[in-house]
């Protein structure tokens, strides 16, 4: 049985997209398909006019670097401290060490973890781990930010702060795709896709109010 069926969606550069649906609906699966973490059993995914299915192995890493991914299970490295976890994407891009430490600290500061840069992730609280994952996703200033339930482990205050970070990225032209259980409550122009029983419905196409 296929988790997702008859899915058809188009995301323009600079869009703010919400994917909603109940537990097990297929939100994570859809996000993984978009970011080429998983391959579709049938159908095609087109990114910048390229069919990702036909991308060969050597090109895949360079595609992935355009995405900032926040996984539902964080996927932090528990044998490196917070600083090194956030530094990883920059090391992969082979930046200067001085550049790296400047940008890592900026990212950690944004999620309120600058004072914990030398701690190991295992000693962080659940919400702090989630924020660390967000810092790692934004540190390389990706052109597409994909976040799978980024605020599930956070209380109201932190949730709002984090959502504002995403909105500020969207403001500067980054494409932002966020999954969540509930419909978003924002006045910013966005699209909301709801997954229900494997089908995708465009719930809302909220225009910018102001």
């Amino acid at each position: 049985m296929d988790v997702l069926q008859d899915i058809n969606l188009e995301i323009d550069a600079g869009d703010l997209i919400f994917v909603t649906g109940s537990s097990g609906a297929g939100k994570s699966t859809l996000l993984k398909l978009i970011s080429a973490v998983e391959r579709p059993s049938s159908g095609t995914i087109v990114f910048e006019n390229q069919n990702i299915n036909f991308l060969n192995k050597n090109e895949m890493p360079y595609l992935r670097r355009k995405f900032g991914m926040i996984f539902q299970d964080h996927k932090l490295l528990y044998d490196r401290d917070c600083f090194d976890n956030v530094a990883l994407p920059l090391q992969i891009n082979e930046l200067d060490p001085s550049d790296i430490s400047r940008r890592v600290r900026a990212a950690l500061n944004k999620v309120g973890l600058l004072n914990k840069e030398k701690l190991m992730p295992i000693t962080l609280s659940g919400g702090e781990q989630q924020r660390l994952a967000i810092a790692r996703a934004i540190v390389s200033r990706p052109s597409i930010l994909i976040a799978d339930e980024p605020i599930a482990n956070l209380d109201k205050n932190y949730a709002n702060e984090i959502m504002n970070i995403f909105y500020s990225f969207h403001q500067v032209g980054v494409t932002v795709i966020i999954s969540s259980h509930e419909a978003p409550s924002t006045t910013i122009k966005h699209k909301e896709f709801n997954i229900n029983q494997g089908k995708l419905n465009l719930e809302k196409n909220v225009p910018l109010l102001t």
Partner: protein
Amino acid sequence: MFLVIGITLSLPSIGLLFLDNASQLSNKIKYEAEISVFLTKDISEDQIEFIESGLKKNSLIKNIHFEPKQDAWDKLQTKLKLSSLEGGISENPLPDAFFISLNTLDSDQIANLINDLKTIEGIKEIVIDGGWIKKLRSILYLIKVGVYTLGSLLIAVLIIVISNTIRLQTLTYQDEIEVSRLIGATNSFIRRPFTYTGIIYGFGGGLITLGILKVIVIIFNLITHRIEDFFGGLIVIQNFNLKESILLIFTAMLAGWLASFISAKQAIYRLEKNI
């Protein structure tokens, strides 16, 4: 870890060392292969000289030693403790002889040479010391087979041990590999730390191997020194020279690199299957 690699690597190295030394020894002995040419009892000095000059011209013959019958008789008497026997024999029963070392071990060539020599007047009897050579070669053959068997088994162990270790490492760093791939690391970026580790393992293991070899050669030579009288200093093991030592370490590093490269590739492949 270094120790495992060191010990494992040192065993086939010891084998090689011994084999190397043994085949040097065998070369030394091989070319001392001799035939004995016994002359007729009533041969004249002139005839002896004639035969000697003839032998000297033969290209197969490396070295000629003439042993007058008196010398042979003295030797035999010493050997059999006959010198002091009462009623010794006044007449020497032994003939003059040439002892000839050959340049070849080819049995056909030796047979031809012997046939040629037999036609010379004054030559009574020719004895080939072939059995002794054959025996020695057989022993060396045995040693060789043993060392090669041992060596290949141990090299198998070495490869399995190194790649096992790197596999252990890739398992420990499985999450790191997965996450790195997901955020866009190229395969060579992911492999790099593992291959470095593999090379360092090889280097450290190689150094330890050299240390172990050094100690073993010293111990071995101490032991053989104690019983040197019986072997006439023949069995003194030479350790690898500088060039060979460097080659050994280089080989170990190469093996480490290879094992780690393969293990890392496998680890990445394992993850690629579930994309």
